């Protein structure tokens, strides 16, 4: 065991699967010689050679499209799109081909591949570097969407994503890359996709979040505990197919639900979770479920980001409302 940042854990997961399976190839812009602009692929080209880890020209659509071809032909490509906003140049390939090839060919072909990209705000970045687009991908039939919030999960979920028979969008919270550190096993291990994690058990409120936003959710849970409120903190970890069972069972226990995420509100993950809880646990609810999310606006540049990002205080304030609700 050693202490790794979330970023280092991503590298560790890539290395583990590249060692275990020679069909795993890693490529994208600046991932080879430079080791990635965030350094997520640092050292991989040196260790595994240029045929396993390599640079591409500036061709996002080409990166994803070529990965589809490689996957169909039996490889396990793991591609990096440098920043979330640039994923959109590859959206056609992701939505029209990666997500559909299995269904289109009635299961005879498939595209087992991973598209890694940093996402989310709070890193004082220029435009198109701070978006949270998990809902776009979650809304696309045929894709799996995974968002780790800790180094341990980043490694285990990435390994599962690479082994998964279907295309996985692996969203890495840029704000947490170096901010979150944890002991990570040197051994290879897989954390199943589709399973949420009850990070802290509780009895009064179900608090669900994921990705970088988990940092504020953890602080908020601690602050609520100091006030005598017991919140059950759930890290969703997989956006699609999400773990409805864990969330619903928790709400059956607490009767109250607050979902917090950075991405915009409308047609977002919180809306989907709440609709699911209304379907399956309406009778258990003691208060209207609440969503605290980014507003439906373009992520502001650094000096306006405070109007967009959600603080731990805002989570606490919203949680208090849900906790104090009486019909």
């Amino acid at each position, binding site marked *: 065991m050693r202490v790794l940042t979330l970023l280092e854990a991503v590298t560790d997961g890539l290395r583990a699967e590249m060692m275990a399976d020679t069909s795993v190839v890693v490529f994208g*812009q*600046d991932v080879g*010689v430079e080791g990635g602009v965030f350094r997520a692929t640092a050292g991989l080209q040196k260790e595994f050679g240029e045929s396993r880890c390599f640079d591409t020209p500036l061709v996002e659509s080409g990166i994803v499209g070529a990965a589809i071809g490689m996957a169909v032909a039996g490889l396990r490509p793991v591609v990096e799109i440098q920043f979330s*906003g640039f994923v959109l140049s590859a959206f056609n390939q992701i939505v029209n081909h990666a997500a559909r090839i299995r269904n289109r060919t009635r299961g005879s072909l498939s595209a087992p591949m991973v598209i890694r990209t940093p996402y989310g705000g709070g890193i004082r*970045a220029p435009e198109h570097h701070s978006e949270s687009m998990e809902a776009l991908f979650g809304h696309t039939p045929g894709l799996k969407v995974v968002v780790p919030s800790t180094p341990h999960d980043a490694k285990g979920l990435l390994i599962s994503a690479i082994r998964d028979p279907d295309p996985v969008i692996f969203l890495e919270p840029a704000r947490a890359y170096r901010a979150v550190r944890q002991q990570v096993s040197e051994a290879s291990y897989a954390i199943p996709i589709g399973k949420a994690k009850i990070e802290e058990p509780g009895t009064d409120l179900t608090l669900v979040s994921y990705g970088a936003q988990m940092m504020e959710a953890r602080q908020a849970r601690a602050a609520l505990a100091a006030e005598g409120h017991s919140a059950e903190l759930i890290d969703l970890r997989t956006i699609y197919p999400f773990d409805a069972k864990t969330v619903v069972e928790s709400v059956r226990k607490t009767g109250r639900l607050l979902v917090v995420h950075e991405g915009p509100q*409308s047609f977002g993950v919180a809306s989907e979770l709440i609709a699911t809880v209304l379907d399956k646990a309406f009778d258990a609810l003691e208060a209207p479920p609440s969503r605290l999310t980014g507003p439906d606006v373009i992520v502001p540049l650094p*000096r*306006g*980001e405070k*109007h967009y990002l959600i603080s731990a205080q805002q989570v606490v304030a919203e949680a208090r409302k849900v906790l104090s609700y009486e019909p």
Partner: protein
Amino acid sequence: MSMFECFDPRQGKVLRLLDETGRLHAPPHGFSLLSDEQALTSYRAMILARAADEWALSLNRQGRMPTYALNEGQEANSVGALMALRPDDWFVPAFRELGGMLMRGLTLEQYYLYWHGNEEGSRLAPETFHMMPVAIPVGSQMVHAVGIAWAERYKGNERVVTTFMGEGATSEGDFHEACNLAGVWKAAVVFYVQNNHWAISLPWEKQSASPTAAEKAFAYGFEGVRIDGNDIFAVYAAVKAAAERARRGEGPTLIEGLTYRLGAHTTSDDPTRYRSEEDVKRWRLRDPVTRLERFLLAREILTSEDMRAIREESVTWARKSFEAAEHTPDPTLEDTFRYLYHEMPPILQEQMARRKG
């Protein structure tokens, strides 16, 4: 017969007028030279851009400036191009054209404001600027240039559109679509590729198997030319010739300016990871500013003292501009919501009210 014919990039030709010693060579027939006054105006813009960059870099190291894209070494490209355009011609930049944007009338304060993380820096009145804002997604702006050209022709205007991109952008699908459209429509567009040799860590040899970016134009039915992008005279002459052709309805041209990014890709990048110091040193000898200074001195347009004064003025102006940008109030919560739509939908009003608490 085109003026560019004797500069076929497929035969290794490169248009260069001002050599590294500052000596100006006679231009081939039909090409224009910058006047002394224009050379001086260009020099001032290049020096201001360089001073602005140096100050931004130093502020970034002090934690006062977020990620900033550096222009150092490439100043002659956008400055020379803008010198060659009419005031109502359009300029569609990427994100490494500070000199050109300043010449179009953007204030340095506004440019700083943008990179400092305030959207107010991109407030542009189309009727005064005829310029698009900075475009971050690589290559995405080129197709807009073709559309603008189409609209201007539709309106009966003889306006030309010059769009800038890096050599890496020529790999993007949008480059193909923009060139193809422009060729088919004979659009009045000048595609200016700043070939600074590095797309972050990727050198040209790994970017494309085509020996040059310029020759890609021929496949789309128009001409491409390679020029020395660190030679302000060559930039001016080539863009002027291409713009006038476009204005006459003879269609687009692709100009590949050979230049070099002397600094990092952005302040977040460390180029020592992927390129050698020798490479950078070699290109420092071809610095567009030094070259122009040699010319201005030899022509007795400026003395060394004049140059020192211009540099000092520029440094002062950069500091003042940044201070003004830094002291501009942050965008308000309302600013974050108000520009999404012409009229704010009720759902956004509700979300804004909730955020206000």
